[in-house]
């Protein structure tokens, strides 16, 4: 069954989320898009397919804060999925102060959501003019960048090129995998937002071939950073499973996202892996073919111990 892509729009109040939303809803792209809005601002988006709902966060498993999901999304999307006329895309606009974790986790943790929908991308809008006022003292601002698959550095017309370069470098150090686009008035080709297609490590490497090096020398104030690991050869599947399980169990609260491709000993196919906090998910990525069997893994999170993660992964090699 074809799953419907979900695009999650985050960013502080004033970053340009509503501007982007209006562009998406009014441009001629031929897509039927439903929008779920949690931001009850005075300036609403007036459109029949915009659905306004209060955020409702709850724990899937008693006491596990890493397994929080969004109940409002489960109910609304469950209802939308019953419609005869399906949507081509679902867009979720979070509040400016929202933690993207529960939104993303909803699509991994709830069976019905997982079966019918997939996360196309987390798109984070960053107000390039004002973000530095928040970045040092706002966990939410850093987490929204850390969770992103696409970061739009917006309002670029208000910032000097040199300052933009510095900001982009800092964002890159926090999130080694995201595509970073510079925009003014959230002006971006809609396909770059709606047609990301979920996690694609190959694509990430095309965008930033040195992404595994990012984060080595991160900004002194950023506790959020990326740790990239690369190793040729095969992993021992059992050891890898045990190490990943232990890692997310012990550090899941600080790991925002994990993405990777593994070569498992004896297996002809690439294993694509992704995770959010303590929830991990693996899928078959097709045969390695003539490509070198190289394991690639990226953690994006807070206070990550690069040396320990590296050592842990090395111990999984067969």
């Amino acid at each position: 069954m074809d799953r419907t892509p979900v695009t999650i729009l985050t960013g502080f109040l004033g970053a340009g989320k509503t501007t982007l939303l209006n562009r998406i809803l009014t441009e001629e792209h031929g897509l039927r898009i439903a929008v779920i809005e949690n931001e009850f601002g005075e300036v609403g988006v007036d459109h029949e397919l915009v659905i306004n709902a209060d955020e409702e966060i709850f724990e899937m498993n008693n006491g596990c804060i890493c397994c929080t999901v969004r109940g409002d999304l489960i109910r609304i999307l469950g209802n939308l999925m019953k419609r005869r006329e399906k949507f081509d895309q679902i867009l979720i606009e979070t509040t400016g102060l929202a933690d993207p974790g529960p939104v993303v986790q909803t699509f991994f943790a709830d069976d019905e959501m997982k079966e019918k929908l997939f996360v196309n991308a987390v798109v984070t809008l960053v107000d390039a003019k004002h973000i530095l006022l928040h970045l040092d003292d706002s966990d939410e601002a850093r987490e929204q960048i850390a969770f992103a698959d696409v970061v739009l550095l917006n309002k670029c017309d208000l910032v000097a090129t040199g300052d933009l370069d510095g900001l982009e470098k800092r964002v890159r150090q926090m999130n080694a995998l995201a595509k970073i686009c510079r925009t003014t008035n959230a002006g971006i080709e809609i396909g770059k937002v709606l047609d990301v297609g979920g996690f694609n490590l190959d694509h990430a490497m095309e965008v930033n071939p040195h992404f595994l090096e990012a984060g080595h020398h991160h900004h002194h104030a950023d506790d959020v950073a990326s740790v990239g690991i690369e190793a040729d050869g095969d992993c021992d599947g059992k050891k890898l499973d045990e190490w990943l399980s232990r890692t997310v169990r012990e550090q899941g609260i600080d790991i925002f996202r994990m993405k990777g491709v593994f070569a498992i000993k004896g297996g002809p196919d690439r294993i694509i892996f992704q995770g959010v906090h303590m929830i991990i998910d693996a899928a078959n990525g097709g045969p390695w073919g003539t490509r070198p069997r190289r394991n690639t893994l990226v953690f994006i999170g807070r206070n990550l111990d690069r040396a320990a993660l590296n050592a842990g992964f090395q111990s999984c090699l067969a």
Partner: protein
Amino acid sequence: MKQIAAVTADDNILGLAWCGDSLAATPSTGGILILDAAGRKGSSLDGHGAGNGESAWFDGSLATCGFDGKIRWNGRAIHAGRGIIERLKASADGKFLGAGQGKALLVFGGDGNPAQGLSGLPAPIADFAWNPADSSQVAVAGAGGARMWKFGESEPFARFDWGGASLRAEWSSCGRWLVTADQTASVHIYDFSRAYPLHIQGYETKVRAMAFSADGTRLATGGSSVITIWPCTGKNGPEGVRPVQLDGHDGEVLAAAFSPQTGRLATGDGTGMVLIFTFEGDKALRKRLRLDAGISALAWHPEKEWLAVGRKNGAVSILSLEA
């Protein structure tokens, strides 16, 4: 079993509700149908934009709600805010109409004017249930569990807190039991006679179908292709009792309803199968009917052995089980 009427709505049938011989069929989107006594399409009420919510008969007219944040009733449109409204229910005595919108329970009197409701609740309302024996009491389900409120009081008179979330709530007509279906594969049952909560786990999936018998002595739950019936009698109700399990479905049970007249149980699954169980002592006699699409809603006529069956493809049939 004889089909006495069939119509088709615009979309998947979300809910069915009888008022005398009139049947309301609410689809996920599009016009809400009202069928007359002969099962003919009587009228169609406007839908609610991106999605309809629950519909309820109130003072002889059908009240509807939906994702547009509006309630329509008796020619009036109430726009309470931008937030969606998914749940709408009339109290058993017909005095009040309640609607859950975000963290507020809006309540209206028979004149359609606002009555005392609930606001500033700790979590958005996933579902609510009126106490059938006392319309000054309501149970609200959502993140954290369920809380039972008496209007006018600042704190709930009973709570049913747990770490997860409750998605649906039903209050037995005898007033003793409240059941919630949860986000996890479980139900919680609250016994008001003992102020005692029970947590029942072990279902294969979320429980999407549940129904009390009219006398409140049986609770039927889905949660797989097997129907589990909990006895709600005696001092401890379902606690420590082995439930009756009824099989025969090919897919997950998505709808269940007890006949208020005969106590028969109708259940429907995602493959289009309807089973009718007649209870005779310890035995449950089964009749089977195969329809053309997954069953999404079931409702018995309040006085006749007529069963309305709604399906995922928008079809609605009225079946007569009268001899």
